Structures are given as C-alpha cells and as structure tokens.
C-alpha cells in the first residue's frame, strides 16, 4: 500500500485544487524525515475531501504544504488554475485570503491579547477591504453566522470563551475573507463529543452558505465519514485508498483501511471486537521507511512482492482507488496477528 500514482485524479478542468506527487522532507540529525512521499489529491469545487490516518502519517504536513507553509520539497500544487509552488512574495500573499485554515486547538490558535472583533476582522484589515463601517458590519455578520451574538462577543477576549466557542470564532475568522478553499486540520478533536456535533453541523452549514470547498483532516473515521464526499486514507507519508465514504467504509479494499475501521470502539455492548481484528505493532520510523509498500511490515497479506515493488494506485470499484498488490475482495475478512 502506501503507493504512488495519479489514477484517482480527475480531469484538471473540473478541479479547484490539484496536488500532484507532493513530497515533503525535513532535515534532522541522523537523516531525512520523509513526512510526505508522493501524495496526489484533488478537490472538485464544493466537495469535501476527508484525509484520515494516524499520527505521523503526514496528513497535517500535506495540508501545510498545500498552503505553502512551508513549501513542499517537490511536487505541484495547482489552486484555481494557478501553480502555487511557482508563486513568490506578493503574488503568493494575494492568493492566501482565498485559502484559509482552521486548526485543532481553538484556544491557542487565537491571539489571547486581542478582542474577538479584532481577531475576526484581521483578514479584512490586512487587505484594507471596504471602510471601517462595512468591515464592522461584516464581522457582525460572520459572528452571527457561526452562532455567536455579535454584541456580547465582539469586545471580549478568547479566554472568556469555551473551546467550542473559540472554534466558532476561528471559523468566522477563516470565512470572512471569502475563501474558496478551507483546510480544517483536526477541527473537532480537542472538543467534547456534545460540542463536536455542534461544530460539525456548523461546518456543513457554512459550507453550503458560503460555497466552500473543504479539505478536512482528522484521525476519527466516523467524523470524517460524516462530513466527506470523498475520503483518502494515508499511512506513513503515502496514500492507501481513495473513494466515496459509504463505499469505502462498507468495502475497504486496503488492509490498512480495514484495520482502522476494525479498531473503532462502537458504543454498543453487543458489537465487541475480538483481538484478531486489532492491528499489532507501531508505525515504523519515517526516517527509514520500509521498502516497497510501506504498510507491509504490519500487513497480514504481505508477500515478497510487497517488499520489492511499490504498488501504484488503481481503480478497484466505481470511484474507489487502492494502492495495494493484494487488495481485499468485497466482504473479505482480515485477521491480524495479536502482537507484532
């Protein structure tokens, strides 16, 4: 798994964002961290792409590389017809209001010394959009749109709000510059479950209301399924599988997708998972990733070929693409060794 290829990409004329063969590497003592190794993704306008995977799989790094923060080591990022990797200085700055980001920790991503009104207005102030009066009206409109009362929130500071409310403020700040693309990096994983549902519903509403296209990153598969039109599964800097959520969750073709799905705790005492479905071992180091398919060291279906040859991504069902030499047949159960 964990292969390369672009078979899953759609016609370039239809997409808002096209990421091709993205590579991000970092220098550290003792080598190079291969955080992202040849990821290709695309987003049609109005679509939500969910990017899932466990810590260290490179999903946040991918998102940041799309934003050119920092720039990828290699690869192409085409946003609304413009090649971002070739843009410099002011030209790149001018693109930024049209792609915004929402982060995991809502409290630390807001400046604690600024008032909420100032935080939300910042994007407009930087670009000098409109006059002071119209900017203020726009801030009030955005605060209202995210479910906050403008009069009682405008002059308060982030510490006076709960995590859920701070995430609403972050959403208002992101949407105020009229972006086309919103990148959400684990936007609900720091929130309590009851608040998580409020924010997920709000993101869906905002997407409809402001015609947003969304790249939604999370480690929680149920959350990703809820918001996504298409889901991409990552492992150790590579793409495993891409497909429509209902189909992908019903018939995972990649053994790693199956492992992730099997590990989800279900709030129903009757559906206990047995040990044979628990993936063993730990994610290998991305300083020296396994040869061939990167998942092969933990994969029960691995053969000699998986070590020698990296699988490239191919279609296995309508709209479902997998990077695996031995994908699961529909309904095929998979057993993992209890320990690895």
């Amino acid at each position: 798994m964990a292969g390369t290829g672009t078979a899953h990409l759609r016609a370039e004329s239809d997409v808002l964002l096209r990421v091709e063969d993205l590579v991000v590497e970092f220098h550290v003592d003792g080598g190079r961290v291969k955080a992202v190794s040849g990821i290709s993704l695309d987003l049609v306008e109005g679509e939500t792409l969910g990017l899932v995977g466990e810590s260290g799989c490179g999903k946040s790094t991918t998102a940041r590389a799309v934003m050119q923060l920092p720039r990828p080591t290699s690869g192409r990022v085409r946003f609304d017809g413009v090649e971002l990797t070739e843009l410099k200085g002011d030209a790149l700055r001018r693109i930024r209001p049209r792609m915004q980001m929402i982060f995991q920790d809502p409290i630390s991503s807001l400046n604690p010394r600024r008032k909420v009104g100032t935080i939300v207005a910042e994007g407009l102030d930087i670009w000098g959009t409109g006059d002071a009066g119209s900017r203020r009206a726009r801030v009030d409109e955005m605060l209202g749109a995210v479910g906050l009362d403008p009069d009682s929130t405008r002059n308060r500071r982030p510490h006076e709000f709960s995590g859920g409310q701070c995430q609403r403020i972050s959403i208002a700040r992101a949407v105020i510059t009229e972006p086309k693309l919103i990148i959400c990096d684990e936007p609900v994983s720091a929130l309590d479950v009851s608040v998580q549902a409020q924010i997920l519903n709000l993101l869906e509403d905002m997407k409809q209301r402001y015609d947003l296209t969304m790249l939604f990153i999370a480690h929680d598969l149920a959350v990703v399924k809820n918001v996504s039109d298409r889901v991409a599964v990552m492992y150790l800097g590579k793409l495993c599988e891409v497909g429509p959520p209902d189909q992908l969750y019903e018939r995972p073709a990649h053994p790693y997708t199956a492992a992730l799905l099997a590990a989800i705790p279900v709030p129903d005492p009757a559906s206990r998972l047995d040990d044979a479905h628990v993936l063993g071992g730990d994610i290998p180091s991305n300083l020296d990733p396994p040869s061939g398919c990167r998942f092969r060291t933990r994969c029960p279906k691995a053969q000699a070929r998986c070590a020698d040859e990296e699988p490239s991504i191919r279609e296995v069902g309508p709209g479902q693409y997998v990077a695996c030499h031995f994908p699961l047949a529909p309904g095929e159960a998979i057993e993992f060794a209890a320990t690895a």
Partner: protein
Amino acid sequence: MSAIQPGPEAPAGATPLLEVRDLATWFESDRGLVHAVDGVSFTLERGRTVGIVGESGSGKTVLTRSIMGLLPKSGVRRQGSIRFEGVEIGSAPPRQMRKYWGAHMGMVFQDPMTSLNPVMKVGHQITESIHAHLDVSRTFARELALSLLESVRVPDPQRRMDEYPHQLSGGLRQRVCIAVALACGPQLLLADEPTTALDVTVQAQVLDLLEAQQRERFMALALVTHDLGVVAGRADEVIVMYAGQVVEKAATATLFSDMKMPYTEALLHSIPTIDQPSHTRLSAIPGRPPDLVHLPTGCRFAARCAYVQDRCLEEQPPLRPGATPGHEFRCWFPVGTPEGQAARARNEGVEQR
C-alpha cells in the same frame, strides 16, 4: 511475579474493595466554591470493571484523584467517605496514602509522556516502585520489571529497559505506564482517559491489554473516559457523570438498551458513527455544561435537555432506581416512559408553534 500477587480472594459477602459514599470535592476559587464532585456514591468489587463516562468538567478526573488521594494540599474541601477494603482512606494524609499507592491501588494517566520521568530509564521507573514496596534484591527487581514489560507486550523488553521515555512511541509509553502501575500487584487500577492521547489502532491494543491484565490479576478496574464507545464492550457497569454528579448508573447492557437519563441519550446520539451515511445531520446537544460555581437550582442538565419541564428548573431530581436492579438515574421525565415522551412531545410542539 508470584511474589507480588494479591492475597487470597475475599470470601463472598465480605466488604467491597472500594466503597465511595456521598463524596464531595470542592475547590476554593476567587469566584466561589467550585463543586467539582458533588455527592458521588458507588462500589467496586474485585475483578469488576466500572466505566466512568463524562465530558470535560463533569468531575470524573477529580473523582479518581480524590480516591487516590492526589488532591492539592490547600484550597480543597472534602466530604463523604472512601473506604478501601473497609478502611476509611478519604481523609488519610499523603504519608499514609503512600503505602496504598502502587501496592494496593495504581493509576494510569492520560498523557504517557508527562506521567513518566523523562530523565529516568524505563527499567528504573518500574524497579523504583518495586523497591518502594517490596524488600527484594536489585537483580530480582530487574527480572520482575523485565517480566512486567513482557506481560504488557512491549517488544524487545531487554533493550527497552535501558531506554528513556522519549525513545518510545506513545503506545509503548502507555504500556510502560501500565507496567509501572501493575508492578506491585494492586487490587485496584484507576485508568484516567488511558487511550485518549493514542491513535485508534493503538487505543484498541492498549484497551485489550488493560482488560487482559485485569482478568489475569482479578483486579478492579475503573476506566474513566469521555467515549461511550470505549466502555461499551469492556465495562461491567457504567457511571455517567454530569456537572459533578452521577446522573445514571447501570450494568452496561442495561445502560445501552434502556437508558433513562436524557443526557445519556443525547450524548450517545451526538456521536457520529460509521454506520450512518455521510452527511447525516448530527443531534448536537445545545449550549454547554453549567458553571460549577453557580449551579442551577433544579436539574443540572435542564438548560440543555429536550425533555425539560417547569419542575426540572425548580427541583433537583434525586437518583432513583430503574426497573433493573442496580440501575439508577436522576430525572423527573425519564427517556422511554409515558411522562418522558409526553414532556418531549410538549417541548417539540412549543418549538413548532
């Protein structure tokens, strides 16, 4: 490890291992008293697992810290009783609690990085606790530590013994924390969000491990979590907490099949599941939990409840028994009862008008 196995099993009908009665833990703050835990009672028998479920601020962490005697020295007001094997430990000073820590009750925390000593080798962290409670030689302690690491399924334990916590992955660190907690054979293990910081596949590994150890050692396990999914398949009994109180308590199967407390129902329905088609609208719980300094007069969940009636705002419901033995809940208009359904229908009618 036979040297540190707990003593013979207590005869039936003997005192429960842990008995918490009307426990209240309040913190003094500039704004007034914070009612973090406010009248909690439960018992836990040997060999049983209780799941304690609640959101941030529900009091679940303060509850486990109160049981362990890990509260700050000042600014705390405590009431009620905590009995361990029949002995009152609720008011025991830290000096006295020391002999319980490790030997009788162990704890596993949420963040395995901050709960391990970063400048001490893994092996030493385990033997430290062994030496504190058992009079054994250094060689024996090291062998014991090694066998503990094996039993918590740390691969290549010999090498890991001489590594520092930062050299281990999150999942391995949590296994080491579990080994430290188990080192002296405690009868009670308190695990406070032990898998929240871990990835989903690692979470499943660590939960399986806790369960296997609990069964093997006939320990009592309190599994504290915000995730109903984590306790569903693993706990014998579940306690749901809200704003410092127990709002529902039942055998796990009963809780999920016959929940009576609207909060439990709302919590379960607000979780997205992989069985729902994508873009399913989630039933979010409106608002947020009450301020623990200025608590409402009536039911603490009333402001967010779909079943709320005037009585709920005026009068706090007591914990009352459900149809199944051991089932208790705190509600005037319970889920699934005629009065509950009528209350909910009335509220929905008002909204529509």
